[in-house]
């Protein structure tokens, strides 16, 4: 946040519509929402699959999935860095220190959260629906879609948990993004930087913005959920 903004109050930055600040907010949202979307596409069907199938080693898989919800972001960042660095197996992609690398790191963090919460949600709903769907002779593929659709309001909570994890983490994206001003700097990496520089008022201001954005997204999601629930539950 150079160019003399360090001494300006965070409130003024927000109220004046500072373009640098809003670029940071925009990038933060794009990276975290993209990572949550990709994680949902990967994690929700995987969670549903585990919920609805029985195979040897299923319980260890569930335990491992639950444990992966607590993946340390710096470890994910380091692993992703090693994969994407020039000498790494995916070095040819040339995406280290780009927003794409940040999305990959956050997707790795968020996928187990969405998969695990989906697994639990679908398993509970399956226990409730099993007889009815069998009685209606619903085909297996349609059963999965039905469960995912009917559990959609609970799954929104899983998505919000995943988004919260992505939006709040700093350890992974600062390693693979590099915190490059105007390119890979997000709210959390900017907060870390400004704090280390002693710009506490700016760091606090960014923190308030971050909290506000997360609160806003959760409020919108909650409102949509409540409005839809009145129609179908």
């Amino acid at each position, binding site marked *: 946040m150079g160019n003399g903004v360090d001494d300006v109050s965070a409130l003024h930055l927000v109220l004046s519509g500072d373009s640098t600040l809003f670029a940071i907010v925009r990038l933060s949202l794009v990276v975290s929402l993209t990572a949550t979307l990709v994680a949902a596409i990967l994690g929700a069907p995987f969670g549903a699959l585990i919920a609805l199938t029985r195979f040897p080693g299923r319980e260890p898989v569930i335990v491992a999935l639950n444990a992966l919800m607590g993946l340390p972001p710096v470890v994910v960042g380091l692993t992703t860095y090693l994969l994407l660095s020039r000498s790494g197996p995916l070095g040819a992609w040339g995406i280290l220190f780009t927003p794409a690398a940040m999305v990959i790191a956050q997707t790795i963090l968020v996928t187990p959260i969405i998969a695990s919460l989906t697994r639990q949600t679908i398993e509970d709903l399956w226990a*409730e*629906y099993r*007889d*009815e769907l*069998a*009685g*209606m*002779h*619903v*085909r297996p593929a*349609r059963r999965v879609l*039905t469960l995912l659709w*009917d559990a959609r309001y609970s799954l929104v909570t899983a998505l919000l948990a995943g988004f919260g994890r992505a939006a709040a983490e700093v350890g992974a994206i600062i390693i693979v993004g590099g915190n490059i001003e105007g390119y890979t700097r997000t709210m959390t990496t900017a907060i870390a930087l400004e704090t280390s520089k002693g710009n506490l008022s700016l760091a606090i201001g960014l923190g308030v913005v971050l909290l506000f954005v997360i609160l806003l997204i959760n409020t919108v999601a909650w409102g949509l959920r409540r409005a839809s629930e*009145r*129609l*179908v*539950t």
Partner: protein
Amino acid sequence: MCVQAGATLLLDSVTLTINAGPPTVLIGPNGSGKTTLLRAAMGLLAPTSGRISWGGSEQTPPTKRAIVFQRPVMLRRSVAGNVLYALAAAGTAHAERHRRAGELLRLVGLESLARRAARRLSGGEQQRLALARALARSPDVLFLDEPTASLDPAATKTIEDLVRKVSAAGVKIVMATHDLGEARRLAGQIVLIHLGRVIESGAAEAFFAGPASEEGKRFIAGELLVQEGSGLS
């Protein structure tokens, strides 16, 4: 046919023929095996030994059977949405579904509640909706598992009237109840089950005029049929 769960014999050497015609009512105390017999006949439970044949064949398509459970689970959709779902599962052409759903909802008297969330219906209304869902596949045989248990007299009468209407339309009703009054009102054929065994079966009129078995006499007299040694001491 025998059905065993672990060490417990749920159905013990049951041999039974159910003919087309007026409703067949399975009576017996709670835990006697009525629900297990219905579930096995529906194909939701595999017999441990023995077999079930339909018109002399074991290959009758399961689509010709439908079931309404004692506590039907409403899908998280509107009333009409539940019927449309059952119609889709039954393979009804898309263009036909809305017309057919309207017919079924009219039949069970829920047309005015079509857009209401199914889970917000009363117990009696949910039973009627479950009946509409079951009829969505135009079954030859409809299994009803204690459809009026825990309903008030008015709701019970509505369900019983529907059962008569569906039976008169040519659908074979096989129904479990422990309510003797209901059995008298609806049954063409009675099957008395106790401790997983068919004690006697035959025309309802003959059964209520004079049961052939000691258990039948005691059941009609209102005595409690309990397993010896199961009482509290």
